[in-house]
């Protein structure tokens, strides 16, 4: 190496060092107060605010100028699993979750990489190697990334103090130094060989990490749960089962099935928090196997398909509301809890796969209202009391075909709703699809179970007019549809609302759309290298507003089976997990 070359390497190293030291001095630790009320340019919770609005108060990008948006930088992401990333932003730095536990910190303005955390490769803060969890090494070492066990999806992460927190595909929770990307602590929460895994990360309330686990479709001698961990030490403070055990209150809702055959109720989407009620709100998934005839109980199966209100300090269930008791078609209600006050009522809004918008009183858990989008054909919900009645002949029997809308893929999925306080509307990404479904048996043995086989033939929804995707704006005050935008392929990102009056979304066919919040007019659109997929965000860096949109593949049947079967002529590359940042041109 020549001297000149050596000197320039030294300079580069020095520059990076100075950069890191400067950042260390500048870094403002994230406080409880900031999490509850984030600075306008930050995106500190997975839906920015803990009420899960997915709303940015930034207003540099407006309906008038959004047409000038330009790509500023982009970034290729890990290709080892499905793309469902929900990034955070603090002081202009993006913390980007990638598949199989990889997290990167990027400069929000320039796109420069600041650090990367790579499980089993990144050293600890004290310089020691991360050999503590061999588990993690075999599963996430890059050279073995093709042989990883578990799907490796990483949706959201959390930030608090000077740390980033993540929950891993092998059922660990880790704390990472937000300044360096080094590992601080790593705790194993459950045995991943039993199927336990995380696909969603924690939320932070009063220094406690609240995290929901999944991987409970197969029979084991335990159930899924939500935990509270001390953010400082990683010590587990509480653990609340999402399934009522035999002998406990609600335990009889599974008939006389022993614990090991009470599967499902995975808590695979992060919750919300209201400092006013002091409660954390968390969804649970449907029971497994999906069909009650296959499960072997017609009971309600608590606490599956419910919204749980938890005390963040003790994990105690203060109230619960089961949306679809004894659910029997894979109609998951686990999704985001959007907290909005309406007519003086502190409410919680939620929509599951079946496409009904529920409104609950979030102080008491009392039912307030249910607005059916009108696309499902399985049941009737009484909007005065929430009572669910299945239609004649629509409760699956083993081996008997039914024509169900939606299909088991659902009309709504993990692509989260965004709410705008300006229009008092929910912006909802949907896929309109149905299925000829015949549910089949599973083995009721330890390690067996699972979702259960379904002979499946997908078809377009009769009211879709051949358009699979719908992005719909629904008024929470009237329950009326303000506008819809139909697309040929699934509406494939979470929604993003902004104070500039612009709403963002994207589809499977690689489009990103900027809509007028009131009319649904597409004011700007662009095309990515593959499907728009993940959680779009907006943030400030150096005083300038940016909009970031992830793209990628995987992400369950909306991204694979449904478009493949129903719009076979539309193609997209089957790879290309990536991240795009847009802004207005310099003046």
């Amino acid at each position, binding site marked *: 190496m020549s001297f000149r070359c050596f000197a320039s390497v030294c300079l580069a190293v020095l520059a990076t060092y100075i950069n890191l030291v400067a950042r260390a001095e500048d870094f403002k630790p994230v406080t409880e107060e900031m999490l509850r009320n984030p600075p306008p340019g930050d995106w500190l919770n997975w839906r920015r605010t803990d009420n899960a609005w997915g709303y940015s108060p930034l207003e540099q990008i407006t309906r008038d100028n959004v047409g000038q948006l330009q790509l500023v930088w982009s970034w290729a992401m890990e290709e080892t699993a*499905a793309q469902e990333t929900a990034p955070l932003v603090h002081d202009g730095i993006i913390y980007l979750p990638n598949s199989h536990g990889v997290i990167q910190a990027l400069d929000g303005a320039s796109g420069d990489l600041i650090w990367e955390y790579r499980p089993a490769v990144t050293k600890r803060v004290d310089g020691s190697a991360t050999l503590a969890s061999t588990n993690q090494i075999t599963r996430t070492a890059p050279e073995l990334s*093709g*042989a*990883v*066990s*578990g*799907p*490796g999806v990483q949706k959201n992460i959390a930030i608090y103090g000077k740390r980033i927190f993540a929950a891993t595909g092998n059922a660990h929770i880790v704390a990472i130094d937000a300044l360096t990307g080094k590992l601080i602590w790593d705790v194993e929460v459950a045995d991943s060989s039993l*199927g336990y895994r995380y696909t969603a990360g924690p939320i932070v309330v009063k220094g406690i990490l609240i995290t929901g686990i*999944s*991987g409970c*479709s*197969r029979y084991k001698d335990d159930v899924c749960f939500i935990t509270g961990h001390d953010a400082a030490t990683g010590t587990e403070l509480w653990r609340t089962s999402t399934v009522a055990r035999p002998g406990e209150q609600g335990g009889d809702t599974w008939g006389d099935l022993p614990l090991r055959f009470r599967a499902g109720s995975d808590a695979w989407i992060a919750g919300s928090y209201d400092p006013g009620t002091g409660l954390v709100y968390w969804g649970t998934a449907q029971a497994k196997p999906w069909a009650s005839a296959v499960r072997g109980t017609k009971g309600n199966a608590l606490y599956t398909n419910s919204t749980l209100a938890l005390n963040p300090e003790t994990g105690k269930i203060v109230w619960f509301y089961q949306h679809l008791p004894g659910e029997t078609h894979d109609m998951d209600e686990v999704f985001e809890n959007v907290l909005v006050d309406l007519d003086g009522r502190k409410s919680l809004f939620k929509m599951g796969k079946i496409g009904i918008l529920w409104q609950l009183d979030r102080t008491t858990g009392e039912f307030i209202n249910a607005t059916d989008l009108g696309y499902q054909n399985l049941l009737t919900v009484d909007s005065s009391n929430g009572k669910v009645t299945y239609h004649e002949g629509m409760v699956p029997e083993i081996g008997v075909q039914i024509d169900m809308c939606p299909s088991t893929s659902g009309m709504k999925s993990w692509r989260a709703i965004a709410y705008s306080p300006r229009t008092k509307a929910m912006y909802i990404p949907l896929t309109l699809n149905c299925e000829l479904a015949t549910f*089949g*048996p*599973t*083995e009721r043995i330890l*390690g*067996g179970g*699972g*979702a*259960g*086989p*379904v*002979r499946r033939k997908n078809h377009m929804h009769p009211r879709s007019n051949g358009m699979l995707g719908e992005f719909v704006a629904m008024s929470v005050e009237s329950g009326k549809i303000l506008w819809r935008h139909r697309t040929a392929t699934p509406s494939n990102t979470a929604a993003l609302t902004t104070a500039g009056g612009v709403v963002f979304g994207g589809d499977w066919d690689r489009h990103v759309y900027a809509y007028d919040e009131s009319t649904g007019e597409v004011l700007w659109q662009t095309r990515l290298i593959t499907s728009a997929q993940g959680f779009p965000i907006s943030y400030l860096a150096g005083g300038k507003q940016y909009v970031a949109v992830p793209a990628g*593949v*995987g992400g*369950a*049947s909306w991204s*694979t*089976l449904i478009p*493949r079967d129903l719009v076979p002529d539309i193609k997209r590359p*089957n*790879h290309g997990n990536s991240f795009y940042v847009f802004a207005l041109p310099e003046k």
Partner: protein
Amino acid sequence: MKTLATKTMILILGLVCTSAVNVPTFAQSKSSVWDGVYSEEQAKRGVTVYQEACAACHGVDLRGDSNSPSLIGVSFMFLWEDRSLGELLTKIQTEMPPANPDSLPNESYVDILAYVMQVNSFPAGEDELVPGKYHQILITGKP
């Protein structure tokens, strides 16, 4: 000059004749997964590929997980009984892994198929399963 109608007539007749000739032979060569249609060696190769490309979703023991169906036992038979190995192979090859279908060499897909048969207790035989044969082999319950 022949009219279009005659041409079509000849074509249809031709088709009918060919299939008439073909049907008996097809029926004769039809076999089931109980006839030892793959080899141990092939299933062994299949294990490796399966663990690499499929186990992350369908489980190391093939029992499936979450949305990924079980490829073993009563659940598997519910989906595949009375369908051909060819149909199963087409499904796997054209749709799996979901994010990257048809990404493995053709032989690897056939090897995985052999492994799936092995774990479902269909007996191995002398010869390897080879392309062209599997459309005539039916997946059936124990005779």
